[in-house]
């Protein structure tokens, strides 16, 4: 392993920038992501910073059951995120549509039809601790030795 790769691994393990995007959720999952910021859970002690800016993000958290307005917006947003990147689906909605996936509905789940999803956290909504532990267990799998794996 080259020195530069070691350096990148060290830095990336303590610096995860998160962006969240709501593609048609009821706000329940969004406020649980916000609750992660509170000093009780203290997401920043793990080096995770909720930036909410796609151009600086490493992890994209997706909530909601994919409403038609996002049809042409989510993929460009995903492409704006620099490599290495990973998308996590929060809650039942991006996985299956939850209660909204019924006849007459406007939503079009799952989100994995549109962008690659690396991890899914079921729950309506999942607890803040589950969100934090998922990001923490997923990040080393994706970001460690990223350049060497690509070769």
């Amino acid at each position, binding site marked *: 392993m080259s020195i530069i790769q070691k350096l990148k691994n060290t830095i990336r393990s303590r610096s995860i920038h998160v*962006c969240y*995007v*709501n*593609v*048609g*959720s*009821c*706000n*329940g*999952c*969004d*406020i*649980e992501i*916000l*609750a992660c*910021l*509170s*000093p*009780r859970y203290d997401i920043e002690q793990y080096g995770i910073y909720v*930036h*909410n*800016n*796609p151009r600086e993000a490493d992890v994209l958290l997706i909530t*909601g*059951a994919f*409403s*038609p*307005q*996002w049809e042409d*917006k989510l993929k460009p*947003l995903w492409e704006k995120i620099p490599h290495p990147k990973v998308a996590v689906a929060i809650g039942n909605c991006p996985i299956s549509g*939850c*209660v*909204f996936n*019924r*006849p*007459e*509905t*406007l*939503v079009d789940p799952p989100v994995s039809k549109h962008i690659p999803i690396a991890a899914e956290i079921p729950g*309506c*909504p999942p*607890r803040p601790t589950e969100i934090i532990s998922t990001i923490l267990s997923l990040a080393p799998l994706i970001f460690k030795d990223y350049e060497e794996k690509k070769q």
Partner: protein
Amino acid sequence: MKKTVDISLPVGPVHPLFKEPCRIKCETRGEYVLSAEVELGYVKKGIERIMRGRPWQEVMFLAERVCGICSVIHNYTFIEAVEKISGIIPPERAAYLRVIVNELDRMQSHLLANYSYCYTIEHETLAMYVLNLRETVMDQLELITGARVTCAYIIPGGVRWDLPDDRAESLKSALDHIDSELTRFVRIFETGPFIALRSKGIGILTKEAAEAAYAVGPTARASGISVDCRSDHPTYQALGFSPVVRHEGDNYARIMARFDEVFQSVNLIRSALLKMQPGPVRGGGVIQAGSIQYRMEAPRGELLYDLVTDEYGRILEIAIQTPSIMNIQVCAHEMLTDAESAADITSIFISSDPCIACTER
């Protein structure tokens, strides 16, 4: 008069300060905002279309998922509406327990709104204090109902579980903690000179404009309109409820109105705990055919459910009117117009506490 527009400034839909996607399109001259328009439609799910023709047992959970922040009030309003149709009267203890859970939900919603505002004006310390205090409220909500956000605690004819004495004691000590901590935070907010610079006299909504645009909730009450649907509710009347009204009509008044309502909710829960007598919490009943318009006070203002049921308990027609749509309109057309700085656009918008998920459903 000819208007000179420098640039059209779009804010959103994915913005660092917005919890939900929406787009504000502003026409600016320099930093001065000439006019603004809010573009919605990013989270439309068609909940009312899904609800039609389904039994109330399903619609009850769908109603709760109209909005995740104020889920209890949607549950409460829907259940009371079908109870009114069927002539079901809940036991007295259940009526007080409903008020306790509803007020806890209102507290967490208001604290979240004030957290967002403090974060928007870059007072991150106070924002984190308020967000941490919200976790205390969420703990109590979880202890009583069993879930943090979508708890489905209120059912026709009563509530799901009783409140045991040890949990009532823990609720009382949590209320004391919230009371003492929030007094400290409100003093920080009142006396902070930089908070005053970003809040006082910014985003003014006059009483006339609020009346003309049918503003509701804390946004209207901060402009001197005494409107609160809780005044008409029998359980709240028994607890001696009277609305909080402020007269300044600026960002500062809206945030302070919400802080005052949190204190008011603490007192309402305390008096409900005192008045509550031991007894049954589930009365039972059968949902019958009928139609009703029923309104209650959500954390953001008046919430209206207009529904028709049939004799099998199915929902034939339903229309929901949520409070945020009026507040978003009045925010775009009255408060944002003539804002002195582009930095105030987000803080004015957040101070009216918009809930996009409610609005679009």
